[in-house]
Structure formats: structure tokens, C-alpha cells
């Protein structure tokens, strides 16, 4: 299997993950990567205008369940598009501004499949995988709310009969 799914406290290297995808076989013509970073200001779901200074985010997950859900999301993507390989890495623990949170990488023959699958994986990961985020900043802790824009983005993939 050419796919890789990992939940880890350690940082990841975009360069290493890219090289792995690039060297899988000679038919890889397109590689799309997504990296999510911690921003230095975060707005709550209900109040997009009021931004809060971030000291760090704490990423919690449900060990065992998360990996199963991520495997399932990757399998769905591979069933839907013609892909050579997929990587999903999600970090947990305390993450400071500019730290990497999540990596999604997709290798395929042509670019459309890689773009669509990477976006699908992120939309599903945001709304289905068992991660929770707590913001520590301005002397207070606050669990972040799910964003309705994320559920809308994930719902779009079930409505589409064709891509």
C-alpha cells in the first residue's frame, strides 16, 4: 500500500512527505499538498470579527477511533478518484503559532484528481475525524466551536453526483 495515515505529537517534514509521494512510481505527474498552520489570531465560529491572540492550541483526539476514521476517509478518496498515493498526518498536543497542524498529500497522474481528493480529504477530516482544539490565549482557555462552513464544505461532496 502506498498510503500513510498518522496521528502524532512530533512535527512532520513537508519535504520528506513530498519526496515519498514523488518516488512511488513513474506515473506520478501531479502532487498536491495541503499544510494547516496555527495562526497567531483565531476568531470564534460565532464571532468572526473578534479575533483572539493565540498563545497555543491544544489538539486532543480519540486514540484508535481517529486512525480508523482517517483510514476510512482515505479509502473513500481512493474509491472516488484515480490516485497513486495519499498521506494524511495530524498532530496532537500543544502547538504554537506558525506550527504545522495537519498535512494532506495526494499523488496522481493528472492534476484534477489530486486537487479534488486533497480538498475532499481536508473537508472530511475537519468534520468527521475525532479531534478537538482548545485555544489558550489572553489568559484564558477556550474550546473552539465547529464551523458551519466546514460542515457545508463536507456536505457538498455527498450532494455532487459527478465531480
Amino acid at each position, binding site marked *: 500500500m502506498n498510503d500513510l495515515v498518522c496521528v502524532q505529537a512530533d512535527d512532520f517534514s513537508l519535504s520528506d512527505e513530498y519526496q515519498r509521494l514523488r518516488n512511488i512510481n513513474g506515473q506520478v505527474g501531479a502532487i498536491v499538498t495541503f499544510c494547516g498552520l496555527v495562526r497567531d489570531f483565531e476568531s470564534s465560529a460565532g464571532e468572526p470579527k473578534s479575533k483572539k491572540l493565540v498563545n497555543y492550541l491544544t489538539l486532543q483526539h*480519540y486514540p484508535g*477511533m481517529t486512525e480508523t476514521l482517517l483510514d476510512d476517509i482515505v479509502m473513500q478518496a481512493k474509491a472516488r478518484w484515480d490516485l497513486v498515493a495519499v498521506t494524511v498526518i*495530524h498532530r496532537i498536543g500543544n502547538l504554537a503559532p506558525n506550527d504545522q497542524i495537519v498535512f494532506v498529500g495526494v499523488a496522481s497522474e493528472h492534476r484534477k484528481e489530486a486537487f479534488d481528493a486533497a480538498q475532499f480529504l481536508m473537508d472530511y477530516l475537519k*468534520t468527521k*475525524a*475525532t479531534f*478537538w482544539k482548545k485555544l489558550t490565549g489572553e489568559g484564558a482557555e477556550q474550546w473552539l466551536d465547529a464551523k458551519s462552513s466546514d460542515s457545508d464544505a463536507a456536505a457538498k461532496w455527498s450532494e455532487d453526483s459527478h465531480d
Partner: protein
Amino acid sequence: MINLLFFGRLGDLAKDAPTCIASLEPDTTPLGIRQMMKADHPELSKALSEPQVLVSVNKMIVKWDEPLFEGDELAFLPPVTGG
């Protein structure tokens, strides 16, 4: 025995809540356990009753009236916010 897990904001509210239920009565469900907590942990019980909260047994999402069995791992999951 049934293990109880509370994630996200529910974890903060469950700091004094039991982490397991030692003796399981027949026909116990996640809903029943939520109601059991009403007396001693009213704030937690209220948070568990919010419609977005999901419940899983042995890492599979189930309905609130799913019957529980000895050895099950019951988890309460607020809306996820990964990525």
C-alpha cells in the same frame, strides 16, 4: 464494568465525574448513563444533552438508546474541530 470517556469541552466538565461504571444494570443505555449523572453532575449532564453531542461505543458512533454490555468503552463526543 464500562469505561467512560469525555472529550473536548466535555472533558473539562467531567473532571469530577466517574471514569467507569463498575456494575452494569441490564438494559443500560448511553441515555440512561447521561440521566444518572443529572443529580451529581448537573452541568456535565446538561452539556451531554446538547443535540450536537455524539456518543460512541467501542469507537463506533451509536444511537443514545444502544444497549451497553460489560466491557464496553462509552465515549461522549462534542462536535469535532480538527485540521
